[in-house]
């Protein structure tokens, strides 16, 4: 493990300050794999992604990304949120805006992106009027268009049908092969099996396990993880 992302003593209090929403003393991700974050609802998975992205600032602790010298001019992190947010513009204009903003010099045209994410017929539709699955595809397209080194994906296939899920997973794999670090939040155990190399399990804001996928799925001795894998309700 090359400790590409290092999280140290990360604490986020609730508004009332009575409990820690996130309490992670130590967590590392390497630079190459697709890392999966799993856990029950309200465990703090999305919060952790938002903290890594910088949408929320922690009360204590640090998140350090060790970019290689060749990647230093590259944008560090981009996120695909559970509830995507767009400009009040068309699908095409949203993509165009993000490409222009990042002064995108790669040979990528808006048309290529629209085709890759199967949004050609929706290009003139207002982004906020797209269906749930289309919004997710657009959100992923925007996140990828920034050409960031790290992609944070918060349940990227939550509203997608099986065919769209396959397409989105294919794109995620392609991006990982292209050298991007991907951190994926999902409830979908088969998806974690298909995509992940390592899995971190969060429960009540704490990372109670972070190990290789095979170890996680076959040999975990932690009660909550076994309950989660069996589909039991975790309290």
């Amino acid at each position, binding site marked *: 493990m090359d400790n590409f992302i290092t999280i140290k003593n990360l604490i986020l209090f609730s508004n009332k300050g009575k409990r820690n929403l996130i309490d992670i003393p130590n967590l590392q991700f390497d630079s190459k794999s697709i890392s999966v974050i799993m856990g029950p609802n309200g465990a703090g998975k999305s919060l952790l992604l938002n903290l890594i*992205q*910088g*949408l929320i600032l922690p009360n204590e602790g640090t998140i350090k990304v060790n970019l290689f010298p060749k990647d230093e001019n590259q*944008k560090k992190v*981009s*996120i695909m*949120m559970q509830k995507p*947010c*767009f*400009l*009040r*513009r*068309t699908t095409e204009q949203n993509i165009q805006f*993000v490409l222009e*903003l*990042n002064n995108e010099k790669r040979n990528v045209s808006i048309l290529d992106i629209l085709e890759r994410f199967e949004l050609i017929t929706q290009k*003139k*539709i*207002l982004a906020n*009027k797209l269906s749930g699955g289309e919004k997710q595809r657009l959100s992923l397209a*925007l*996140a990828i268009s*920034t050409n960031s080194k790290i992609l944070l994906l918060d349940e990227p296939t939550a509203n997608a049908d099986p065919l769209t899920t396959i397409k989105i997973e294919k794109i995620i794999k392609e991006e990982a092969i292209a050298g991007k670090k991907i951190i994926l939040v999902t409830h979908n155990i088969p998806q974690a099996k298909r995509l992940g190399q390592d899995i971190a399990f969060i429960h009540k804001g704490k990372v109670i396990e972070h190990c290789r996928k095979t170890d996680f799925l076959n040999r975990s001795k932690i009660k909550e993880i076994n309950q989660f894998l069996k589909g039991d309700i975790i309290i």
Partner: protein
Amino acid sequence: MEVFLKAFITALELILNFDISLYEIVGLSLQISITSLLIASIIGFPIGVFLAITQFSGRSFIISIFNSLMGMPPVVVGLIVYLLVSRSGPLGWLEILYTPYAMIFAQLLLILPIIISLSTQIFEELHKEYKDFFIIFSVPPKKSIIIYISDSKDSLITIFLAGFGRAVSEVGAVIIVGGNIDHVTRVMTTTIALETSKGDLPLALALGIILIFISLIINIIANKLKIKINKESSL
């Protein structure tokens, strides 16, 4: 009824005979109102964005002040501008009292709170939608101001109309600082006030009809523009 009919005929005669003094008065009215409106928009919209998207102590107080200033009596504004630009005032060196510049200044002070207050509310709504998007894609502050303004075009037209309505119909301030000098600072509203005081009701009423007609035309144009913007953005 006879007075109204006579006024209507007088108005038609004045318009169709291309009465030079009438067109001069109408032209000056529009020139002053539109100039003050444009200046107020250039200053007011960025201030509106700033107040909507930044958090600082005293922000609510400043917003309350602008809200209160929306209802400021024009004669009070006229008096303040008079004191500022009169020979002994702090801006006396400008020598603009009884000139159209003083009238623009007075109207600017009247419109600016309207532009700032109403636009702040619109930008606050948009900010709720755009905040995360701007953080995720690292949109620079200058660019975000432009986006806030351009993406609320249709709502800003309504504010523009409210400002224009306030400016073009205003009499108290412009009569104090303009002096209602024939061929120099005489505008529609001050002429109406003058002719009414002289007992020439048909002419006053004729000008009133022209004033309403102009407002109507500007509203129609603005609404057409709004519909066009809405159509373009809902494709």
